[in-house]
């Protein structure tokens, strides 16, 4: 084997080795976030277990819409690392609703700008969006209850008749 070809083989083998082992590949931004303690996880499980129908519906949507593939919530075993952890958020349901319906408006430092789909407001109806926000707020210990309009007067999400 010529020296040039031998060098190429070594280079490709190096790339292969790095790819397999992760050396020099960096880490998911979510790895740098603080994980909830065991007590916080137990509290979150209790809050979800005793929560409203909307919150339970939100939990179903969290899985069916694929949110768990990118976001972590230890209390329900969601381990996604592409987006920020959601069980240590310090946001109420209204702020979470804004993040779901307009995910590009505010990007958490270190995360890709365009990764989160921006079409939830058109894919889900208003009640489903609110359920999702309520679930995340509940599991993170934030405020899930809303004002008199129930968060439904914001003009976000498909109307129920769609």
């Amino acid at each position: 084997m010529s020296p040039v070809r031998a060098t190429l083989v070594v280079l490709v083998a190096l790339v292969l080795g790095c790819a397999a082992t992760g050396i020099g590949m960096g880490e998911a931004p979510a790895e740098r976030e603080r994980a909830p303690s065991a007590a916080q996880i137990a509290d979150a499980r209790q809050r979800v277990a005793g929560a409203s129908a909307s919150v339970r519906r939100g939990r179903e949507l969290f899985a069916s819409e694929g949110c768990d593939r990118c976001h972590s919530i230890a209390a329900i075993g969601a381990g996604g690392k592409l987006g920020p952890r959601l069980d240590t958020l310090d946001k109420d349901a209204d702020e979470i609703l804004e993040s779901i319906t307009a995910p590009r408006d505010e990007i958490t430092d270190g995360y890709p700008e365009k990764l989160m789909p921006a079409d939830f407001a058109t894919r889900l109806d208003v009640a489903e969006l609110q359920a999702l926000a309520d679930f995340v707020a509940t599991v993170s210990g934030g405020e899930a209850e809303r004002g008199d309009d129930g968060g439904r007067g914001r003009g976000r999400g498909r109307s129920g008749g769609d």
Partner: protein
Amino acid sequence: MRRLLQPHRPGPLALALLAVAALGVLVAGFQHARLFHRGYAQVDIVGTLFILNALGSAVVVLALVVRRVWVFVPGVLSICVPSLVSIALSHGSTGFLGFREGGYDPDALVIVVAEVAAVVFALIGAIIARSELPAGAAR
């Protein structure tokens, strides 16, 4: 079939085009590996496909290095074409295996450009390399 697995030395033009294709495959494979270790590993099936893409890319490039041109070209197509299709699906409303992305960030763009270039250059290189074969040898 056995002839296709034999070492083949293409002419300088074909070799240059195939080398560019190899570079594209390597860049795309490296990006897939990088993204795998940066969070995609947690995505069911899709994460596994990312690391398989990276490992497969390296193997395919090695095939060119050891002059298995007729292993390299189908290898490039079988890695890059499904990858490009799945990237397109994941950016649509249906998603790919339940995974959806919202837009093409720089990482995704690098993969798309590298894989499109790999497919195009591999095909052109293969056509030129085939035309260089003596009559009857391509069969």
